[in-house]
């Protein structure tokens, strides 16, 4: 982002103004150069030009005439009025450009509109025909405004639909919910007809003078303190009997329904209604329902219903089989784990999986299918099949008399190897950037990390001399960024060594935002490849 510090800018522009005041020739030159720059596809450049225009416009009559003559082009470049040539990025500068231009044009019109007719006409033209709203300081173009309006309308319609579905859902579920909670309520009333009296604290009918008890009379000194802890049974237990079993069962069922279905639903409705901005009536209704559900649940939990068992002799008639004790299995598992951890302690040898199993597998692989040449060496006493050349057709056919056609392919023969296969017992274990160790099992040399050497737990080689320093340090020590920055600040020379294979790109305009870099997103790069013309052509074929 350019620094449009007013003071900085005025300092810079004073020089320009000093030149321009000498003669109109310079004004014209300045105008042409700035107008040329205004055509750049970079909003920051345009904004800078606009500020120069502002300085010159309020000073030079000739400049005003020049600009007013080209006012149409000018307005196209600084205002978002031409759909065919939208304002260039970066977006932040674009917005600032629009706002600044609008403010400026309005100001010019107010001050100079009377003297420069074309400016006045231009202002009115922009206002009427191009629908530029000079009062709207957000500098939204007509299309933008329309787009926003359309979006709002769409959202509103969507909201209405959602609200409607919510209402429908609510009206359909409400009856069930109320039904459910009423059942619970009624159940409670049936089970605890005197519920309210239970809840009320029983009044103590003790003597009133007991408060002024003389402790001394009981042999207790006045300054002694004591604590009396009285445990009060807050939870009520229900004894299941034949009479109330059905009621309890019903209440439990309804509770299950309430917690699993209605409670989440009510919460969801509440959130949805708040999001959609439903009217107060609906929200209140939902809140009432929510309170009702929560109250019922709370009461249920207070009364400790879940503890009462309504099943008839459930423990004796259980169909479930006893599960075998897991202790044994756990022991085995812990053993294996401890073994492995012991092995990990060693620096080099490490095995993966069971070695015996692997060897067996390898041995199996080494039984090659039988071919003609190896019949001689084969120890099996299968007769050698004979092939005769078919005189008519030029391919080998099996002698039909041998009768062993089916078995030939299945017969294998062992191949003698000089040494027995010995699986690799170690891994490379060089430290990886991820913090793990290289898990490759190579016999002698890891293709990534070189010869396999003994390493400690962190993956550093035990013998430092074994690691040849094949590479020189990539950057000399004087290439420290801090030092380079210091040198650059002092002498203005950038001594950074360019990275190999890359040419040092000199940013010509360090104060400008790189517009190309803004477009260089992963999406655009991918698009370039995926939507390439040649690729598309290939696909369409």
């Amino acid at each position, binding site marked *: 982002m350019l620094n449009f510090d007013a003071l900085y800018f005025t300092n810079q522009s004073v020089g320009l103004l000093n030149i321009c005041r000498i003669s109109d020739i310079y004004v014209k030159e300045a105008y042409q150069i700035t107008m040329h720059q205004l055509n750049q596809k970079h909003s920051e450049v345009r904004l800078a030009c606009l500020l120069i225009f502002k300085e010159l416009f309020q000073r*030079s*009559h000739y400049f005003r005439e020049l600009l007013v003559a080209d006012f149409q082009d000018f307005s196209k470049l600084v205002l978002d009025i031409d759909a065919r040539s939208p304002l260039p990025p970066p977006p932040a500068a674009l917005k600032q450009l629009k706002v600044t231009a609008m403010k400026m044009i309005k100001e010019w019109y107010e001050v100079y509109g009377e003297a420069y007719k*074309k400016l006045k006409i231009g202002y009115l033209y922009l206002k009427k025909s191009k629908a530029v709203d000079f009062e709207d300081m957000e500098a939204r173009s007509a299309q933008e405004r329309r787009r926003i309006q359309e979006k709002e309308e769409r959202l509103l319609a969507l909201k209405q639909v959602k609200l409607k579905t919510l209402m429908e859902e609510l009206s359909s579920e409400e009856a069930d919910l109320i039904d459910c909670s009423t059942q619970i309520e009624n159940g409670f009333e049936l089970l605890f007809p005197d519920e309210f009296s239970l809840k009320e604290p029983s009044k103590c009918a003790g003597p009133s003078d007991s408060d002024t008890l003389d402790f001394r009379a009981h042999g207790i000194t006045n300054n002694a303190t004591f604590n009396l802890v009285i445990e009060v049974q807050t939870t009520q237990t229900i004894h299941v009997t034949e009479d109330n079993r059905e009621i309890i069962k019903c209440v439990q069922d309804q509770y299950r329904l309430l917690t699993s279905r209605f409670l989440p639903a009510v919460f969801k409705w509440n959130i949805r209604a708040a999001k959609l901005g439903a009217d107060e009536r609906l929200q209140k209704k939902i809140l009432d329902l929510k309170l009702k559900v929560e109250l019922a649940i709370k009461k249920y939990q207070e009364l400790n219903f879940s503890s009462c068992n309504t099943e008839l002799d459930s423990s004796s008639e259980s169909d479930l089989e006893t599960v075998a004790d897991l202790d044994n299995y756990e022991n085995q598992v812990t053993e294996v784990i401890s073994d492995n951890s012991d092995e990990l302690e060693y620096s080099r040898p490490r095995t993966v999986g069971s070695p015996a199993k692997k060897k067996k597998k390898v041995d199996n692989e080494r039984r090659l299918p039988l071919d003609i040449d190896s019949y001689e060496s084969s120890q099996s006493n299968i007769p050698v099949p004979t092939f005769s050349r078919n005189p008519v057709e030029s391919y080998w056919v099996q002698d039909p008399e041998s009768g062993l056609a089916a078995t030939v392919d299945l017969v294998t023969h062992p191949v003698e190897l000089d040494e027995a296969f010995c699986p690799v017992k170690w891994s490379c274990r060089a430290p990886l950037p991820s913090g793990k160790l290289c898990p490759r099992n190579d016999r002698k040399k890891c293709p990534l990390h070189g010869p396999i050497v003994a390493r400690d737990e962190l993956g550093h080689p035990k013998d430092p001399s074994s690691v040849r320093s094949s590479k020189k340090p990539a950057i000399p020590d004087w290439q420290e960024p801090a030092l380079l920055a210091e040198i650059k600040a002092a002498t203005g020379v950038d001594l950074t060594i360019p990275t190999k294979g890359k040419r040092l790109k000199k940013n010509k305009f360090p104060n400008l935002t790189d517009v190309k870099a803004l477009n260089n997103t992963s999406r655009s790069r991918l698009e370039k490849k995926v939507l390439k013309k040649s690729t598309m052509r290939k696909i369409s074929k």
Partner: protein
Amino acid sequence: MNDVEAIFSLKTGLLDARKFRSNQATKRISALRLSNFQEVENSHSAGINTIDLEKVEGRYLLSGGADGSIHIHDVLNLSGNLQFTCKNVGKIDRQSNRHCHKYSVECVQWYPLDTGMFLSSGMDKNLKIWDANAQVPADVVLVNGKIYHHHMSPNATQHNLVAVASTANQVFLADLRSGSTTHELRSHTSSILSVKWSPMQEFQLASGSMDNRLLMWDVRAARSCLFSMDQYNGRNHADVEKTTAHNGNVHGLSFTADGLFLISVGTDCRMRLWNTETGRNEMVNYGKISMESKKGTRFDISSDTEPQMIFVPSQGNILVYELTTGIKRATLLGHYNTVTCCAYNENVQSLYSGANDRNILVWAPESAEAIREEPVNKGAALGPRSIVPRRNLTEDAWSSDEG
């Protein structure tokens, strides 16, 4: 010769009155600029395709828009004040008048001898003859094709024909007395964009077309056309089929007031001057005039000045050329979109122009000094604001500290 001397010699008879008049007109026209005092009330809601100023009084300006509306403005300043806005005195649009054109109006023209009647035509293939006072059509002529242009002879005494240029390849002649088309002039091979009656020979007619040809007709003649204008003045001048007037569509035509010359503009960005007697190209080089209009471009000629001036719309500007030499005298800047038409007012040497930016602008001979004059009605200016010295807005304002 300054004004005082000119008046003196006029009084002593040393100077011809007509000469004096044309001198003054020429002087005024060279000072033509966007008027600071006059403006036309902005009533159009779409681009303006055509305007016409009546010749009788030079008072009423007719304009047709792309939305099918027709407006009439009174341009005569009777207020006695420099500051003047031309009021809209007549409006025919969809809201107010059911007889309004359905599509874009392409051409409007006053009846040459009276302001009681005018003609309009447009893309709805209708040529409407309006009663200007009642604002209802007296007659409607349906033509076979979308109408680009029509013209009524300014000096005809023996006929009442209106020539109509349309997308059909013929020029139709509509007779106002019968209210129907009487002739078809066939020779063009493509849409006709412009027609004009000669102000000298009342039966002569010129037509420019999309087939790049410019033909001269005598409507009495039995054969197809008198001759075709040849831009190269070649030997096969008589070969109507082969000669071309432009290397692009011929989309604007105008006779000079004496009828001796014809000017045409084309989409090849050229303007050509033709001798109407011989059909020769006069080979005046006006340079390149960029015009993007695919439809007609209406330009005008000042007949009262010496030399005569042509006002040609060129995109957003109006160019002023000398007729005989082709020298560009001025560029009039003011419009914000393509200028489509202009009309010259001989009485006060001012120019009216219409453009796609919905504005009709007035160009008047106002000198730079005149702008700085105080308004005429001093009474209004005697408010508290007059105490504050008004800054002269057209002067440089270099602040003194920048030295």
